[in-house]
């Protein structure tokens, strides 16, 4: 079977099924790229071209086309029907022409048989048009591949073609058998019926049936005399005075009857079944949901907003091993990067001997000056702790780290810095995640040198007395 439409449909359907598991973004990129290539080449992208492109990309050795398997299965069904049809045709004709010399072969029986054949052929076509599938359970049992929606819709027309081919072989084998029998044997045809009819009406019937070929081959259209002479009654056997040669003159009619009313309709319907398959395949391809999706992907620009990069798993380590320390009692306070502006909380300002600023808007030279000032203060007083007030909501930066590194070198050994992150609302405590970033900073910078403390919220001033003394 070399039906391109059918092959294309089956391949396309198989491809669409495979694509089901693919990421939509990938499919869009792939098909849009194909459409753009087509545009560059000045051709319209069609499912046929797309299929060819897909096959071209998978290269040789990709295995048989998905359609080959289904078409192979239907080829076997077709061949089976043809063989069975041919054998049955031979047997049926032998049965019809069974003649032992005692009885005539009844033309009426042959007429009825041909009419039955014609009816069967028409029913097969009608069934395929309606889509009735009485033999579907059989197909399901013997089919190797699971039925897809497309193959279910195709089955009626495919099955009709198989049946018409079987019927064609049946009719062909019947005709050949008839001709061989005519040559090999003396066949005595006659007509008989229980109905009360005369030769005249029977001749009318025969003439009507023979009308298509009467002009072509007059001998194949029996004359009234032959009809009149060859009526027989089984009860009246033995009294017949008809010339035996007359009985054989029916054979051209029988041959033409068979050829015209059994073989020819089968042939025509068989060709029509082929057309029906192609038409159905084209229709199914055109209305295939995957085709609509494919055309959509081809027509729509592929927009990539920059989602390739993925570092969601690369989250910073937010474990905090340090804990807050109580606010040390000290008289030196440093405000980092504007912390405490415009006013430090009383807890931090009252009773301090040195309150200085660093970082932020201060220059690096001023920072160095502050470091020196604190160092000299530390040597003059017994204090070993320094409060470094920061804005809790701002993250600790490299500049603070640099400042503390310099401080560690400049200040006497054993000095400790207590970082005091403030909340943006001075009366509140900073949020936990804000405090934790300072704890982690202290841990990185050296917990023996740096600790983190919070000012007690709404607490009475702890060193009021010391401040008063000062």
């Amino acid at each position, binding site marked *: 079977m070399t039906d391109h439409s059918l092959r294309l449909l089956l391949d396309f359907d198989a491809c669409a099924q495979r694509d089901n598991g693919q990421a939509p973004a990938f499919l869009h990129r792939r098909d849009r790229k194909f459409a753009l290539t087509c545009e560059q080449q000045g051709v319209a992208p069609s499912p046929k071209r797309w299929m060819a492109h897909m096959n071209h990309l998978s290269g040789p050795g990709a295995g048989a086309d998905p359609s080959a398997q289904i078409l192979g299965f239907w080829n076997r069904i077709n061949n089976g029907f043809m063989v069975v049809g041919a054998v049955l045709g031979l047997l049926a004709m032998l049965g019809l022409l069974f003649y032992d010399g005692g009885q005539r072969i009844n033309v009426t029986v042959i007429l009825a048989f041909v009419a039955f054949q014609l009816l069967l052929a028409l029913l097969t076509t009608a069934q395929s048009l309606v889509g009735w599938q009485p033999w579907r359970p059989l197909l399901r049992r013997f089919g190797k591949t699971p039925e897809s929606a497309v193959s279910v819709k195709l089955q009626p027309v495919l099955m009709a073609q198989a049946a018409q081919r079987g019927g064609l072989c049946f009719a062909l084998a019947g005709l050949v058998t008839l001709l061989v029998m005519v040559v090999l044997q003396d066949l005595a045809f006659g007509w008989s019926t229980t109905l009360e009819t005369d030769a005249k009406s029977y001749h009318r019937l025969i003439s009507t049936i023979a009308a298509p070929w009467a002009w072509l081959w007059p001998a194949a259209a029996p004359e009234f005399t032959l009809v009149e002479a060859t009526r027989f009654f089984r009860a009246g056997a033995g009294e017949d005075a008809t010339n035996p040669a007359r009985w054989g003159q029916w054979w051209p009619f029988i041959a033409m009857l068979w050829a015209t009313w059994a073989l020819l309709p089968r042939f025509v319907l068989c060709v029509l079944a082929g057309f029906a398959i192609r038409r159905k395949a084209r229709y199914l391809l055109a209305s295939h949901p995957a085709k609509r999706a494919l055309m959509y992907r081809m027509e729509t620009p*592929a927009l990539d907003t*920059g989602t390739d990069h993925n570092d969601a798993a690369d989250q910073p380590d937010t474990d905090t091993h340090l804990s807050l320390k109580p606010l040390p009692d000290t008289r030196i306070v440093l405000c980092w990067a504007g912390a405490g502006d415009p006013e430090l909380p009383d807890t931090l300002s009252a009773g301090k001997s040195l309150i200085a600023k660093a970082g932020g808007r201060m220059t690096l030279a001023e920072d160095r000056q502050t470091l020196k000032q604190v160092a000299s203060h530390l040597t003059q007083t017994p204090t070993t702790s320094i409060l470094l007030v920061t804005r809790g909501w701002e993250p600790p930066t490299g500049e603070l780290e640099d400042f503390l590194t310099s401080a560690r070198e400049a200040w006497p050994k054993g000095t400790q810095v207590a970082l005091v992150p403030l909340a943006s609302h001075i009366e509140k405590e900073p949020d936990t995640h804000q405090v934790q970033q300072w704890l982690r900073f202290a841990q990185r910078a050296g917990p023996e040198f740096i600790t983190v403390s919070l000012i007690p919220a709404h607490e009475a001033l702890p060193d009021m007395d010391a401040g008063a003394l000062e």
Partner: protein
Amino acid sequence: MSTAPTFAVVGHPNKGKSSVVATLSQNDAIAIALEPGTTRARQAYPLSVDGKTLYTLVDTPGFQRPRRVLEWLEAHSVSASDHSETVRAFVLQHQGDGRFTDECELLTPLIEGAGIIYVVDGSVPYSAEHEAEMTILRWTGQPSLALINSIGSDDHSATWQAALGQFFQVVRNFDAVRAPFEQHLSLLRAFGQLEPDWEQALDQATHHLSAQRQRRKTLAAGIVANALKDMMSFQEKRTLTLDQVAGTSDNTLAEQLRQSWYQHQRQREQTLRVEIEHLYQHQRVRRQEAELEWHSDHDLFSEGSREHWAVSKRYLATAGFGAGAVSGAGLDAITLGTSLGTGALVGGLIGAAGSYFYGDKLTLPVLNIGLLRDGLKTATFGPVQDSQFGYVVLGRAVDHWWHISHRNHAGRELLDLEPADQHWLERLDKKSRQTIQRTLDKCRKQQPLDENQRHNFHLAIEQCMTGYEDWRLNRT
């Protein structure tokens, strides 16, 4: 043709630079944390259409030592005309210097010609301490725009706006987590206005992004429609041998089938959720599924779901359902009677077909145990007998779609699907109502839909989405 513009998103550490980039690039896989230094290297996020880049966003680490950089720059500069060259020289000289890694990372795209998007947090008080950073950025000589992002709940944006205006050409408010899509587009257009050459590319980009959003809505309607179809027509089937039939009581069988029917429907709904999320490039909402706060009492089959999402009887009547429902219920009863008559064993009818008119529960599917055939019996449960089930699924799906389509990719919070408190479907036009009702009925009866019916159903679902969007908009 001029090359596509690049925008470097820069600023102090932990001000939401990555959030801005995540939202604009629709990438929810960018590491975002309330921890300074989450971004350690610059990362480019190009927006491309058919492989052609229209613009690139570059996420960068924050400034760590701006005063030291500025000191260096000032020491190496003679006049204002050499500022940008001095910045370039700084980067060249400090490549590989551990102290200035972050500064080199963030200044590199700027010396390569990127526009500046300076991000500050408008929820904390303005601080003049950032002026060193702003001065460095001004030294690069690149077109600049300041974005006031809001991480916390306080609002100090007015003071920020006034202060930033002195340093930047354009100052915009943009909440990376909550800004609606129209603001994303307007921001991108503002990027384009920084430089005449950039305008066209950004206009194209916003055009494609809006078209993509419209397409996504249509695709989402198709996805919801397919799920509805599947769920309305789903039937749980089990084939039993004679021994199994003998060993299982009808009640046990009914219970087993019901459970697996429920299970399947829940799974199908979950698949729908994931499909919608992936359509909107939310790949990670699902990974947080364990944390997804499903109200346990708002699960698909709970009373709560019905109360919130099912439609009123009046609605059903106007959707051409009224009399149909009565005859439908009658038909079910007749079918049931017929199957009894033919000798099929009916395990149980759970709920009554007409109960929804009088009761408050959804009518549940029918259990049917078929005739013995080839030594096997087939027991089936479903499809659902009540269209209200479809409306519950539809309501929940449209609600989830709305949340996902309005969720910015910087959002890392849990997706909390709170049920709506009104019957929003009442606003739907009559034709869409009828299409939905007819399709739900067809699915319930397991009748196939042709291409045209399917298409109309998708359109009706899209109408639902539009209606729901309007309802949400007007609700607040």
